[in-house]
C-alpha cells in the first residue's frame, strides 16, 4: 500500500521536513540525502542576500522548498514576505511564522489565521506554524490551510512533546495533516509523535546541534518511519499501570 503525504496536491514519500538554519549550509545536501527529506524549510530573510554563498544554491534539486515568514510580527508583514518569496522564485509553498515574542518565539495564532486566509486565496500552499488549539486549527482549516503545524515545545528547546495532549486532539479532530513542528529534540520523540498519528515531523535544532548533522538526520528518518509504521499497523493496547487481572471480575455472572 502506498503511503503518501499530500500537501497542496503534491505527493511526498518522506514524512520528514528538515530545517536549514542553524548549521553550515554545506551540510544541507548531505543532511537531505541521509535524512531522505523531500521538503526543506528556509527562512526567506536568510535567502535575502547578495552573498556569493546563497543558501538557495545549496538546496538540492528536486527538493520542495518551504520558505517561512520568520521575522514577521503580524499578518500584513507575513503576507508581504510570502509574496516576496514567490517573486524570488521560491515557489508557492509557504510556512507562516508570525511572532511577537522574541523570547520563546511563540506563534501568534490570531494573526496567523488572518495571513492564512489572505495567502490561501492567492493560491499559496499555506502551512501555518501554530500553538496547538483546537478552535484555531479549525479556523485555519476554514481559512484554507493545507496542514497545521503545532509546536511540541518552544523552538530550539529540544524538550519534546510538551503539548502532547493538545496535539493528539488536533490529530483526532482535524481533517488536515498535522505536522509536528518545533521542540522535538530526539528521534524517539519524533517516533512518538508519529505513533500518535502525526502526518510529518519538522526538525531543525535537534539536528543542527548534533555531533554529526547528516547522521542525526538519518536517525530522525528511521524514527519517523518506525513511528509511522507503528501507527498504520495499529498498536496494541498499552496499560497505564499494573497488569490486568486474569480472573475476570464478572466471572460470577451466569
Amino acid at each position, binding site marked *: 500500500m502506498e503511503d503518501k503525504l499530500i500537501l497542496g496536491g503534491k505527493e511526498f514519500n518522506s514524512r520528514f521536513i528538515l530545517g536549514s538554519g542553524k548549521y553550515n549550509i554545506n551540510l544541507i545536501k548531505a543532511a537531505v540525502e541521509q535524512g531522505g527529506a523531500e521538503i526543506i524549510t528556509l527562512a526567506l530573510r536568510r535567502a535575502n542576500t547578495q552573498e556569493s554563498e546563497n543558501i538557495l544554491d545549496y538546496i538540492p534539486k528536486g527538493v520542495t522548498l518551504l520558505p517561512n515568514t520568520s521575522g514577521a510580527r503580524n499578518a500584513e508583514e507575513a503576507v508581504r514576505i510570502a509574496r516576496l518569496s514567490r517573486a524570488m522564485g521560491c515557489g508557492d509553498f509557504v510556512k507562516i511564522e508570525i511572532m511577537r515574542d522574541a*523570547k520563546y518565539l511563540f506563534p501568534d495564532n490570531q494573526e496567523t489565521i488572518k495571513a492564512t486566509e489572505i495567502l490561501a486565496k492567492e493560491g499559496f500552499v499555506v502551512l501555518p506554524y501554530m500553538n496547538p488549539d483546537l478552535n484555531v486549527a479549525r479556523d485555519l482549516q476554514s481559512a484554507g490551510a493545507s496542514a497545521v503545524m503545532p509546536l511540541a515545545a518552544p523552538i530550539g528547546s529540544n524538550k519534546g512533546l510538551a503539548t502532547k495532549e493538545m496535539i493528539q486532539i488536533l490529530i483526532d479532530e482535524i481533517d488536515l495533516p498535522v505536522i509536528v513542528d518545533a521542540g522535538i529534540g530526539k528521534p524517539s520523540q519524533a517516533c512518538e509523535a508519529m505513533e500518535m498519528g502525526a502526518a510529518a515531523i519538522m526538525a531543525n*535544532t535537534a539536528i543542527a546541534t548534533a555531533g554529526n548533522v547528516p547522521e542525526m538526520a538519518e536517525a530522525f528518518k528511521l524514527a519517523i518511519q518506525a513511528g509511522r509504521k507503528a501507527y498504520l499497523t495499529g498498536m496494541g493496547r498499552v496499560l497505564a499501570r499494573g497488569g490486568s487481572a486474569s480472573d475476570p471480575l464478572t466471572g460470577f455472572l451466569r
Partner: protein
Amino acid sequence: MNEENQVYYIDSDVLPPEALAKKHKLEQDPSCRSNHMEYMEGMEVIQSDIKDKVLKAMDEFDYSLYTASDVQRALSKDTCSIEDFKALLSPAAAPFIEQMARKAEEITKNHFGNTVYIFTPIYIANYCQNYCIYCGFNCYNNIRRKKMNFEEIEHEMQIISRTGMEEILILTGESRTYSDVEYIGEAVKIAKKYFRNIGVEIYPVNVEEYKYLHECGVDYVTVFQETYNPAKYETLHLLGHKRIWPYRFDSQERALMGGMRGVAFSALLGLDDFRKDALATALHVYYINRKYPHAEVSLSCPRLRPIVNNDKINPNDVGEKELCQILCAYRIFLPFAGITVSSRESVEFRNGITKICATKVSAGVSTGIGDHEEKYEGKQDADAGDEQFEINDNRSFDAMYHDMENGGLQPVLNDYIYV
C-alpha cells in the same frame, strides 16, 4: 580634586585659555556642572518604571554575599532567575567559568545554532558637543574632525559593500548641530542602496525622530548607557546633552515606540563597578523584553580602550576572564538576546567567545571618519577624521569570515528583511 578620574584628563595646547579654564572648572568643581538627572529643553519624557526597577536592583546588589553553592544551584537550573544571575556575576562564580561556558554554549546552540553574524560600523562624523572624559571624540580633545558629505558617504559605502558586507551600523559623534537627524536620515537612505540591514548608534533622540529614521530605513538602535550608576556617570560626562542620564536610559524605549525592530544595550565596562553595571545592563534588557516582547534585543560588552592623545586609558579591573564570566552570565540569563563582541577585543578572545555565546562580530573596522578606502584599498586620504578609540582586532571582512568558518561556525551576512 577628582583623583579617581585624573587619568582621563588631557589638556590640549591648542585650546584657547578661556576654554581651558572652563574645562578645568568642569573637571574640578562639581558645583559648576548642571543637574545630570534633569531633562534639558526638547528632551521628551516618557512614562516608564524600568529606570527605577534597574536602579533599585543595582543598589541592592551585594555580590560579596553569594557563595559557591549559590552558583552551583544557578547552574543546575533550567531557567535562570534574577537571583541566579546575580550569583553568576559574583566573584564566587569565578572558579566555575568552565561550567558556565559549557552551559552558555549549549543555550547559544539551541537558540542560534552555529551561526555568527558579521557587520561593520561606519563613522560618518566625529564632531561632538559633549565632554565625556574617556572618549576620543570629546569636544576638548584635539583631534582631526570631519563630517563626510553625501558623496563621501556613498563612496565609503560602495567600498564597504564591495567586500560583501550586508549589515552596517552608522555612527556619529554626538552633535545635533553638525550631524542633525536629517543628515543621518539621508545617510541611511544612501546605505539602503548598498546594505540589507541598517542600524544606528547616534545621540539619543525623541520618538518622532526615531520614527523618521525608521522610515528612512533604520531598524536597529544602539545606545550605550556607559555606566548605570548615576553618581559615577555625573563625574564622567561633564558637559553636553549626554550628561542627562535618564534621557539616555529611556532611549531604547523611545526607539521601540518609534517603530524600530530591535535595540541594543551596553555599559562601558571599566568605568565603574563592572559587576553592578553588568547586572543593570542585563536587567535593562530583561525589563524591556517584558514590556516589549516583540522587540529584538542585544547586548554588547565594550571595555575601555586607549584614545588619541591618551594611551593610559584601560579597562581597569575587567580582564578577559571577568569579561568572559559576564558574557556567559548574560547568555544564561537571557538565552534569546544577541551578544555582540567588538573589535576592542583581541583576535583570540573573539575567536573563543564566538564559540561560547557571542552571536555577532564586527569586521573590517575603522572608528575613524572617511578612511575605509585607505584601510581597505590602500589609498591615502590626508583628509580623514581621527578615531574614537584604538581597536585591537583589525581583521578584514574576508579574514573574519574565514576564521569563523574554520572555527566551525557559520558566518551569516544577513538574516533580515525590512518590511
